[in-house]
Protein backbone atom coordinates (compact mmCIF):
# COMPACT_ATOMS: atom_id res chain seq x y z
CA UNK A 1 0.00 0.00 0.00
CA UNK A 2 2.90 2.35 0.65
CA UNK A 3 3.99 1.45 -2.84
CA UNK A 4 0.65 2.74 -4.00
CA UNK A 5 1.16 6.01 -2.17
CA UNK A 6 4.53 6.38 -3.81
CA UNK A 7 3.11 5.68 -7.26
CA UNK A 8 0.35 8.23 -6.71
CA UNK A 9 2.84 10.82 -5.57
CA UNK A 10 4.89 10.13 -8.67
CA UNK A 11 1.81 10.45 -10.86
CA UNK A 12 0.94 13.82 -9.34
CA UNK A 13 4.53 14.93 -9.76
CA UNK A 14 4.51 13.93 -13.42
CA UNK A 15 1.21 15.75 -13.88
CA UNK A 16 2.55 18.93 -12.37
CA UNK A 17 5.83 18.76 -14.23
CA UNK A 18 3.84 18.62 -17.46
CA UNK A 19 5.14 15.19 -18.41
CA UNK A 20 4.40 14.81 -22.12
CA UNK A 21 3.54 11.09 -21.98
CA UNK A 22 1.12 11.40 -19.10
CA UNK A 23 -0.57 14.49 -20.51
CA UNK A 24 -0.87 12.94 -23.95
CA UNK A 25 -2.58 9.89 -22.41
CA UNK A 26 -4.99 12.11 -20.49
CA UNK A 27 -5.78 14.31 -23.45
CA UNK A 28 -6.43 11.31 -25.71
CA UNK A 29 -8.84 9.96 -23.09
CA UNK A 30 -10.88 13.06 -22.69
CA UNK A 31 -10.77 14.32 -26.25
CA UNK A 32 -11.93 10.97 -27.62
CA UNK A 33 -14.66 10.36 -25.03
CA UNK A 34 -15.98 13.92 -25.04
CA UNK A 35 -16.27 13.90 -28.80
CA UNK A 36 -17.98 10.50 -28.70
CA UNK A 37 -20.50 11.66 -26.13
CA UNK A 38 -21.10 14.91 -28.02
CA UNK A 39 -22.06 12.94 -31.11
CA UNK A 40 -24.00 10.21 -29.32
CA UNK A 41 -26.11 12.42 -27.05
CA UNK A 42 -28.31 14.20 -29.62
CA UNK A 43 -28.90 10.95 -31.48
CA UNK A 44 -29.83 9.14 -28.29
CA UNK A 45 -32.08 11.92 -27.01
CA UNK A 46 -34.00 11.99 -30.24
CA UNK A 47 -34.33 8.21 -30.30
CA UNK A 48 -35.44 8.09 -26.66
CA UNK A 49 -37.97 10.84 -27.23
CA UNK A 50 -39.39 8.97 -30.20
CA UNK A 51 -39.63 5.78 -28.18
CA UNK A 52 -41.44 7.54 -25.34
CA UNK A 53 -43.69 9.96 -27.19
CA UNK A 54 -44.77 8.16 -30.30
CA UNK A 55 -46.58 4.93 -30.81
CA UNK A 56 -45.63 2.70 -33.71
CA UNK A 57 -45.49 -1.02 -34.32
CA UNK A 58 -42.27 -2.48 -32.98
CA UNK A 59 -41.76 0.31 -30.45
CA UNK A 60 -41.78 -2.07 -27.54
CA UNK A 61 -39.43 -4.45 -29.33
CA UNK A 62 -36.98 -1.59 -29.82
CA UNK A 63 -37.05 -0.80 -26.12
CA UNK A 64 -36.20 -4.41 -25.32
CA UNK A 65 -33.47 -4.39 -27.96
CA UNK A 66 -31.93 -1.26 -26.44
CA UNK A 67 -31.97 -2.82 -23.00
CA UNK A 68 -30.35 -5.94 -24.38
CA UNK A 69 -27.66 -4.07 -26.27
CA UNK A 70 -26.45 -2.60 -23.00
CA UNK A 71 -25.08 -6.08 -22.31
CA UNK A 72 -22.81 -6.15 -25.37
CA UNK A 73 -19.25 -6.48 -24.11
CA UNK A 74 -17.03 -3.60 -25.14
CA UNK A 75 -14.60 -5.98 -26.73
CA UNK A 76 -17.30 -7.37 -29.00
CA UNK A 77 -18.09 -3.88 -30.21
CA UNK A 78 -14.39 -3.38 -30.58
CA UNK A 79 -14.13 -6.56 -32.64
CA UNK A 80 -17.03 -5.59 -34.85
CA UNK A 81 -15.65 -2.15 -35.50
CA UNK A 82 -12.28 -3.74 -36.10
CA UNK A 83 -13.67 -6.11 -38.72
CA UNK A 84 -15.45 -3.22 -40.43
CA UNK A 85 -12.45 -0.92 -40.46
CA UNK A 86 -9.73 -3.47 -41.06
CA UNK A 87 -8.09 -3.30 -44.48
CA UNK A 88 -10.02 -6.32 -45.65
CA UNK A 89 -13.31 -4.97 -44.23
CA UNK A 90 -15.94 -2.90 -46.02
CA UNK A 91 -14.60 0.41 -44.71
CA UNK A 92 -10.94 -0.55 -44.85
CA UNK A 93 -10.20 2.08 -47.47
CA UNK A 94 -10.91 4.86 -44.99
CA UNK A 95 -7.76 3.81 -43.14
CA UNK A 96 -9.36 4.54 -39.80
CA UNK A 97 -8.12 1.57 -37.84
CA UNK A 98 -5.79 2.40 -34.95
CA UNK A 99 -6.78 6.08 -35.05
CA UNK A 100 -8.79 8.19 -32.63
CA UNK A 101 -11.66 8.24 -35.12
CA UNK A 102 -11.97 4.49 -34.76
CA UNK A 103 -12.02 4.86 -30.98
CA UNK A 104 -14.73 7.49 -31.24
CA UNK A 105 -16.86 5.26 -33.46
CA UNK A 106 -16.45 2.39 -31.02
CA UNK A 107 -17.29 4.52 -28.00
CA UNK A 108 -20.37 5.97 -29.68
CA UNK A 109 -21.68 2.49 -30.34
CA UNK A 110 -20.79 1.54 -26.80
CA UNK A 111 -22.69 4.31 -25.08
CA UNK A 112 -25.72 4.62 -27.35
CA UNK A 113 -27.80 1.81 -25.81
CA UNK A 114 -27.14 3.05 -22.29
CA UNK A 115 -27.93 6.63 -23.25
CA UNK A 116 -31.13 5.71 -25.07
CA UNK A 117 -32.37 3.40 -22.33
CA UNK A 118 -31.73 5.87 -19.51
CA UNK A 119 -33.10 8.82 -21.46
CA UNK A 120 -36.17 6.78 -22.31
CA UNK A 121 -36.69 6.07 -18.62
CA UNK A 122 -36.37 9.79 -17.92
CA UNK A 123 -38.90 10.70 -20.61
CA UNK A 124 -41.30 8.11 -19.30
CA UNK A 125 -41.15 9.44 -15.79
CA UNK A 126 -41.68 12.99 -17.02
CA UNK A 127 -45.05 14.69 -16.81
CA UNK A 128 -47.11 14.33 -19.97
CA UNK A 129 -48.71 17.68 -19.25
CA UNK A 130 -45.40 19.41 -20.00
CA UNK A 131 -45.66 18.21 -23.59
CA UNK A 132 -49.33 19.14 -23.86
CA UNK A 133 -48.82 22.55 -22.30
CA UNK A 134 -45.97 23.38 -24.65
CA UNK A 135 -47.99 22.37 -27.70
CA UNK A 136 -51.14 24.20 -26.71
CA UNK A 137 -49.15 27.36 -26.04
CA UNK A 138 -48.06 27.26 -29.64
CA UNK A 139 -44.72 25.46 -29.55
CA UNK A 140 -43.83 23.39 -32.59
CA UNK A 141 -43.30 19.70 -31.93
CA UNK A 142 -39.59 20.33 -32.17
CA UNK A 143 -39.69 23.12 -29.59
CA UNK A 144 -42.04 21.15 -27.38
CA UNK A 145 -39.55 18.26 -27.44
CA UNK A 146 -36.82 20.62 -26.30
CA UNK A 147 -39.08 22.00 -23.58
CA UNK A 148 -39.79 18.51 -22.28
CA UNK A 149 -36.07 17.74 -22.34
CA UNK A 150 -35.40 20.84 -20.30
CA UNK A 151 -38.03 19.81 -17.77
CA UNK A 152 -36.43 16.37 -17.27
CA UNK A 153 -32.86 17.57 -17.60
CA UNK A 154 -31.76 16.03 -14.29
CA UNK A 155 -32.62 12.57 -15.55
CA UNK A 156 -31.05 13.23 -18.94
CA UNK A 157 -27.91 14.62 -17.36
CA UNK A 158 -27.65 11.54 -15.17
CA UNK A 159 -27.87 9.44 -18.32
CA UNK A 160 -25.14 11.42 -20.04
CA UNK A 161 -22.88 11.23 -16.99
CA UNK A 162 -23.41 7.48 -16.76
CA UNK A 163 -22.67 7.06 -20.46
CA UNK A 164 -19.56 9.19 -20.17
CA UNK A 165 -18.45 7.11 -17.19
CA UNK A 166 -18.88 4.01 -19.27
CA UNK A 167 -16.75 5.14 -22.20
CA UNK A 168 -14.05 7.10 -20.40
CA UNK A 169 -13.33 4.00 -18.32
CA UNK A 170 -13.66 1.44 -21.07
CA UNK A 171 -10.68 -0.55 -22.23
CA UNK A 172 -11.76 -3.48 -24.43
CA UNK A 173 -12.98 -1.51 -27.39
CA UNK A 174 -10.34 1.24 -27.30
CA UNK A 175 -7.62 -1.35 -27.10
CA UNK A 176 -9.02 -3.29 -30.03
CA UNK A 177 -9.64 -0.48 -32.49
CA UNK A 178 -7.20 2.09 -31.16
CA UNK A 179 -4.28 -0.25 -30.59
CA UNK A 180 -2.98 1.56 -27.50
CA UNK A 181 -0.38 3.47 -29.55
CA UNK A 182 1.46 6.01 -27.43
CA UNK A 183 0.77 9.67 -28.34
CA UNK A 184 -1.98 8.57 -30.73
CA UNK A 185 -4.47 6.19 -29.21
CA UNK A 186 -3.20 5.35 -25.77
CA UNK A 187 -5.76 6.60 -23.29
CA UNK A 188 -5.91 6.21 -19.54
CA UNK A 189 -7.72 2.84 -19.46
CA UNK A 190 -5.47 1.21 -22.05
CA UNK A 191 -2.45 2.66 -20.27
CA UNK A 192 -3.72 1.14 -17.04
CA UNK A 193 -4.18 -2.19 -18.79
CA UNK A 194 -0.61 -1.96 -20.02
CA UNK A 195 0.80 -1.13 -16.59
CA UNK A 196 -1.23 -3.93 -15.08
CA UNK A 197 -0.02 -6.45 -17.59
CA UNK A 198 3.52 -5.46 -16.62
CA UNK A 199 2.64 -6.14 -13.01
CA UNK A 200 3.02 -2.43 -12.19
CA UNK A 201 -0.22 -2.36 -10.20
CA UNK A 202 0.53 0.79 -8.30
CA UNK A 203 1.15 2.73 -11.48
CA UNK A 204 -2.15 1.37 -12.76
CA UNK A 205 -4.05 2.56 -9.74
CA UNK A 206 -2.27 5.90 -9.78
CA UNK A 207 -3.41 6.39 -13.37
CA UNK A 208 -6.90 5.41 -12.29
CA UNK A 209 -6.77 8.15 -9.69
CA UNK A 210 -5.68 10.67 -12.26
CA UNK A 211 -8.71 9.68 -14.33
CA UNK A 212 -10.95 10.00 -11.29
CA UNK A 213 -9.52 13.39 -10.48
CA UNK A 214 -10.38 14.75 -13.90
CA UNK A 215 -13.81 13.08 -13.85
CA UNK A 216 -14.40 14.75 -10.50
CA UNK A 217 -13.53 18.15 -11.93
CA UNK A 218 -16.01 17.57 -14.74
CA UNK A 219 -18.73 16.46 -12.35
CA UNK A 220 -18.24 19.34 -9.98
CA UNK A 221 -18.61 21.68 -12.93
CA UNK A 222 -21.78 19.86 -14.01
CA UNK A 223 -23.03 19.86 -10.43
CA UNK A 224 -22.85 23.62 -10.34
CA UNK A 225 -24.73 23.74 -13.60
CA UNK A 226 -27.49 21.42 -12.49
CA UNK A 227 -28.27 22.85 -9.08
CA UNK A 228 -28.81 20.95 -5.90
CA UNK A 229 -30.68 17.91 -7.16
CA UNK A 230 -32.70 17.71 -3.96
CA UNK A 231 -36.42 17.19 -4.17
CA UNK A 232 -38.07 20.45 -3.30
CA UNK A 233 -41.13 20.90 -5.41
Amino acid sequence: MSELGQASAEAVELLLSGDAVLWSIISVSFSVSLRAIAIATPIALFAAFTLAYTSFPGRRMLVTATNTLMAVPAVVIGLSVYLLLSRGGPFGDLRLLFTQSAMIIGQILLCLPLLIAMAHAAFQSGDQRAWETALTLGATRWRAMRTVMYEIRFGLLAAVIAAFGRIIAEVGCSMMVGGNILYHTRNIPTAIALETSKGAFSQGIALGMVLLGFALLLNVALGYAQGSGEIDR
Partner: protein
Amino acid sequence: MSTEASTNLIEVRDLNLTLAKRRVLNIESVVIRRGEIIMLAGNNGSGKTTLLKIIAGLIRAPEAHFRCLGSPMNGEQAAAFCRGRHVYLHQTPYMFDGSVEDNVAYGLKQRGRDFAQRRIEIRDALAWAELEHLVHRHAHELSTGEKQRVALTRARILAPSLLLLDEITANMDSISRRRTYEMVADFKRAGSTVVFATHDHEPLEAIADVRLELSKGKLAPTDRRAAAVIPLRRDSSIHES
Protein backbone atom coordinates in the same frame (compact mmCIF):
# COMPACT_ATOMS: atom_id res chain seq x y z
CA MET B 1 -55.75 26.57 -45.31
CA SER B 2 -58.91 28.62 -45.72
CA THR B 3 -59.33 31.23 -43.04
CA GLU B 4 -62.54 32.66 -44.49
CA ALA B 5 -64.71 34.25 -41.86
CA SER B 6 -66.78 31.17 -41.21
CA THR B 7 -69.07 31.64 -38.26
CA ASN B 8 -68.17 28.14 -37.11
CA LEU B 9 -64.71 27.86 -35.60
CA ILE B 10 -64.92 24.11 -35.45
CA GLU B 11 -67.52 21.45 -36.03
CA VAL B 12 -67.10 17.82 -35.06
CA ARG B 13 -69.33 15.00 -36.22
CA ASP B 14 -69.43 11.31 -35.23
CA LEU B 15 -67.08 11.83 -32.35
CA ASN B 16 -66.62 8.36 -30.89
CA LEU B 17 -63.58 7.93 -28.71
CA THR B 18 -62.44 4.78 -26.98
CA LEU B 19 -59.69 4.95 -24.37
CA ALA B 20 -58.36 1.83 -22.68
CA LYS B 21 -61.16 -0.16 -24.33
CA ARG B 22 -63.83 2.07 -22.81
CA ARG B 23 -66.15 4.30 -24.83
CA VAL B 24 -65.43 7.73 -23.39
CA LEU B 25 -67.15 10.00 -25.90
CA ASN B 26 -70.10 9.30 -28.15
CA ILE B 27 -71.16 12.63 -29.65
CA GLU B 28 -73.14 12.99 -32.83
CA SER B 29 -72.27 16.58 -33.49
CA VAL B 30 -70.83 19.57 -31.69
CA VAL B 31 -70.31 23.06 -33.09
CA ILE B 32 -68.29 25.92 -31.64
CA ARG B 33 -69.33 29.28 -33.09
CA ARG B 34 -67.06 32.27 -33.22
CA GLY B 35 -67.57 34.82 -30.47
CA GLU B 36 -69.63 32.66 -28.16
CA ILE B 37 -69.14 31.75 -24.54
CA ILE B 38 -69.89 28.10 -24.14
CA MET B 39 -70.42 26.53 -20.79
CA LEU B 40 -69.56 22.84 -20.66
CA ALA B 41 -71.39 21.12 -17.82
CA GLY B 42 -71.42 17.49 -16.77
CA ASN B 43 -70.75 15.23 -13.85
CA ASN B 44 -67.37 13.83 -12.97
CA GLY B 45 -66.17 11.48 -15.65
CA SER B 46 -68.75 12.64 -18.19
CA GLY B 47 -65.98 13.48 -20.69
CA LYS B 48 -65.50 17.27 -20.42
CA THR B 49 -61.72 17.16 -20.25
CA THR B 50 -61.51 14.66 -23.08
CA LEU B 51 -63.73 16.78 -25.33
CA LEU B 52 -61.75 19.94 -24.62
CA LYS B 53 -58.46 18.16 -25.34
CA ILE B 54 -59.80 16.93 -28.67
CA ILE B 55 -60.81 20.47 -29.65
CA ALA B 56 -57.34 21.61 -28.55
CA GLY B 57 -55.70 19.01 -30.81
CA LEU B 58 -54.06 17.27 -27.87
CA ILE B 59 -56.02 14.02 -28.19
CA ARG B 60 -56.60 12.59 -31.64
CA ALA B 61 -60.03 11.31 -32.60
CA PRO B 62 -59.13 9.34 -35.70
CA GLU B 63 -62.65 8.33 -36.67
CA ALA B 64 -64.42 11.66 -36.22
CA HIS B 65 -65.11 14.19 -38.98
CA PHE B 66 -63.97 17.74 -38.44
CA ARG B 67 -64.60 21.05 -40.14
CA CYS B 68 -62.21 23.76 -39.02
CA LEU B 69 -62.96 27.32 -40.19
CA GLY B 70 -65.08 25.76 -42.86
CA SER B 71 -62.52 23.24 -44.19
CA PRO B 72 -63.29 19.56 -43.78
CA MET B 73 -60.53 17.61 -42.08
CA ASN B 74 -59.87 14.16 -40.68
CA GLY B 75 -58.78 13.60 -37.08
CA GLU B 76 -55.08 13.84 -37.83
CA GLN B 77 -55.36 17.09 -39.81
CA ALA B 78 -57.72 18.65 -37.31
CA ALA B 79 -55.36 17.90 -34.42
CA ALA B 80 -52.48 19.54 -36.28
CA PHE B 81 -54.67 22.50 -37.15
CA CYS B 82 -56.04 23.07 -33.68
CA ARG B 83 -52.83 22.49 -31.74
CA GLY B 84 -51.37 25.78 -30.60
CA ARG B 85 -54.23 27.74 -32.19
CA HIS B 86 -56.81 26.71 -29.61
CA VAL B 87 -55.28 27.17 -26.21
CA TYR B 88 -56.23 24.57 -23.60
CA LEU B 89 -55.88 25.12 -19.85
CA HIS B 90 -55.36 21.97 -17.81
CA GLN B 91 -57.61 21.26 -14.90
CA THR B 92 -54.44 20.91 -12.81
CA PRO B 93 -52.04 23.16 -14.67
CA TYR B 94 -48.44 22.25 -15.37
CA MET B 95 -45.84 24.84 -14.48
CA PHE B 96 -42.60 24.85 -16.44
CA ASP B 97 -39.46 24.73 -14.35
CA GLY B 98 -38.72 28.43 -14.08
CA SER B 99 -40.05 31.68 -12.68
CA VAL B 100 -43.62 32.88 -13.03
CA GLU B 101 -42.34 35.34 -15.62
CA ASP B 102 -40.70 32.52 -17.62
CA ASN B 103 -43.96 30.64 -17.60
CA VAL B 104 -46.02 33.54 -18.80
CA ALA B 105 -43.40 34.33 -21.44
CA TYR B 106 -43.43 30.82 -22.91
CA GLY B 107 -46.25 31.21 -25.41
CA LEU B 108 -45.14 34.70 -26.43
CA LYS B 109 -41.69 33.36 -27.23
CA GLN B 110 -43.21 30.73 -29.52
CA ARG B 111 -44.98 33.55 -31.31
CA GLY B 112 -41.69 35.35 -31.83
CA ARG B 113 -42.39 38.43 -29.71
CA ASP B 114 -39.18 40.24 -28.89
CA PHE B 115 -37.86 40.67 -25.40
CA ALA B 116 -38.87 44.27 -24.69
CA GLN B 117 -42.39 43.86 -26.00
CA ARG B 118 -42.77 40.59 -24.06
CA ARG B 119 -41.70 42.25 -20.86
CA ILE B 120 -44.36 44.91 -21.11
CA GLU B 121 -47.11 42.48 -22.04
CA ILE B 122 -46.14 40.17 -19.18
CA ARG B 123 -46.13 42.96 -16.60
CA ASP B 124 -49.53 44.13 -17.77
CA ALA B 125 -51.00 40.64 -17.69
CA LEU B 126 -49.61 39.87 -14.26
CA ALA B 127 -50.91 43.18 -12.98
CA TRP B 128 -54.35 42.29 -14.28
CA ALA B 129 -54.23 38.94 -12.44
CA GLU B 130 -52.82 40.62 -9.30
CA LEU B 131 -49.83 38.34 -9.45
CA GLU B 132 -47.14 41.03 -9.75
CA HIS B 133 -45.65 40.11 -6.40
CA LEU B 134 -44.99 36.59 -7.73
CA VAL B 135 -43.20 37.59 -10.93
CA HIS B 136 -39.77 36.31 -9.89
CA ARG B 137 -41.00 33.38 -7.80
CA HIS B 138 -40.23 29.86 -8.95
CA ALA B 139 -43.43 28.46 -10.41
CA HIS B 140 -43.06 25.13 -8.59
CA GLU B 141 -43.24 26.87 -5.23
CA LEU B 142 -46.66 28.37 -5.88
CA SER B 143 -49.84 27.34 -4.13
CA THR B 144 -52.42 25.45 -6.18
CA GLY B 145 -54.63 28.48 -6.69
CA GLU B 146 -51.66 30.66 -7.61
CA LYS B 147 -50.65 28.09 -10.21
CA GLN B 148 -54.10 28.16 -11.69
CA ARG B 149 -54.01 31.92 -11.95
CA VAL B 150 -50.55 31.94 -13.53
CA ALA B 151 -51.73 29.32 -16.04
CA LEU B 152 -54.69 31.51 -16.94
CA THR B 153 -52.43 34.52 -17.39
CA ARG B 154 -50.06 32.44 -19.52
CA ALA B 155 -52.93 31.50 -21.85
CA ARG B 156 -54.81 34.80 -21.77
CA ILE B 157 -51.80 36.81 -22.87
CA LEU B 158 -51.82 34.94 -26.19
CA ALA B 159 -55.32 36.23 -26.96
CA PRO B 160 -56.20 33.03 -28.81
CA SER B 161 -59.27 32.85 -31.01
CA LEU B 162 -60.48 29.90 -28.96
CA LEU B 163 -59.74 29.45 -25.28
CA LEU B 164 -60.57 26.12 -23.64
CA LEU B 165 -60.83 26.41 -19.87
CA ASP B 166 -61.04 23.20 -17.85
CA GLU B 167 -62.51 23.98 -14.42
CA ILE B 168 -59.84 26.57 -13.95
CA THR B 169 -61.60 28.40 -11.18
CA ALA B 170 -61.79 25.28 -9.02
CA ASN B 171 -58.99 26.31 -6.69
CA MET B 172 -59.24 30.05 -7.08
CA ASP B 173 -60.34 32.35 -4.31
CA SER B 174 -63.51 34.39 -4.79
CA ILE B 175 -61.78 37.53 -6.06
CA SER B 176 -59.85 35.60 -8.69
CA ARG B 177 -62.97 33.77 -9.77
CA ARG B 178 -64.81 36.99 -10.29
CA ARG B 179 -61.92 38.37 -12.28
CA THR B 180 -61.83 35.23 -14.40
CA TYR B 181 -65.47 35.56 -15.31
CA GLU B 182 -64.89 39.20 -16.19
CA MET B 183 -62.04 38.13 -18.43
CA VAL B 184 -64.28 35.64 -20.20
CA ALA B 185 -66.76 38.40 -20.87
CA ASP B 186 -63.92 40.63 -22.14
CA PHE B 187 -62.80 37.87 -24.47
CA LYS B 188 -66.21 37.67 -25.95
CA ARG B 189 -66.26 41.40 -26.45
CA ALA B 190 -62.99 41.13 -28.36
CA GLY B 191 -64.58 38.55 -30.67
CA SER B 192 -62.83 35.53 -29.17
CA THR B 193 -64.49 32.32 -28.21
CA VAL B 194 -64.36 30.57 -24.86
CA VAL B 195 -65.38 27.06 -23.83
CA PHE B 196 -65.54 26.77 -20.08
CA ALA B 197 -65.96 23.44 -18.31
CA THR B 198 -67.16 23.93 -14.79
CA HIS B 199 -69.19 22.67 -11.85
CA ASP B 200 -69.98 26.20 -10.62
CA HIS B 201 -72.95 26.87 -12.77
CA GLU B 202 -74.42 30.10 -11.50
CA PRO B 203 -71.70 32.65 -12.22
CA LEU B 204 -71.10 31.39 -15.70
CA GLU B 205 -74.72 30.96 -16.65
CA ALA B 206 -75.09 34.70 -16.39
CA ILE B 207 -72.68 35.31 -19.27
CA ALA B 208 -72.75 32.08 -21.30
CA ASP B 209 -74.41 31.99 -24.71
CA VAL B 210 -74.62 28.25 -24.92
CA ARG B 211 -74.72 25.50 -22.38
CA LEU B 212 -73.44 22.09 -23.44
CA GLU B 213 -74.33 19.29 -21.09
CA LEU B 214 -72.30 16.08 -21.17
CA SER B 215 -73.57 12.95 -19.55
CA LYS B 216 -71.61 9.70 -19.74
CA GLY B 217 -69.92 10.83 -22.93
CA LYS B 218 -73.13 11.90 -24.64
CA LEU B 219 -74.18 15.45 -25.39
CA ALA B 220 -77.65 16.52 -24.28
CA PRO B 221 -79.58 18.74 -26.75
CA THR B 222 -77.94 22.17 -26.88
CA ASP B 223 -79.53 25.03 -25.01
CA ARG B 224 -78.68 27.96 -27.27
CA ARG B 225 -79.95 31.25 -25.92
CA ALA B 226 -79.90 34.58 -27.69
CA ALA B 227 -76.42 35.99 -27.19
CA ALA B 228 -77.88 38.92 -25.37
CA VAL B 229 -76.08 39.85 -22.20
CA ILE B 230 -72.97 41.24 -23.83
CA PRO B 231 -73.19 42.91 -27.24
CA LEU B 232 -71.00 41.23 -29.84
CA ARG B 233 -68.48 43.75 -31.20
CA ARG B 234 -67.41 42.14 -34.48
CA ASP B 235 -65.27 45.17 -35.36
CA SER B 236 -62.69 44.60 -32.65
CA SER B 237 -59.50 42.78 -33.62
CA ILE B 238 -59.66 39.03 -33.90
CA HIS B 239 -56.44 37.38 -32.93
CA GLU B 240 -55.74 34.53 -35.29
CA SER B 241 -52.39 33.41 -33.94
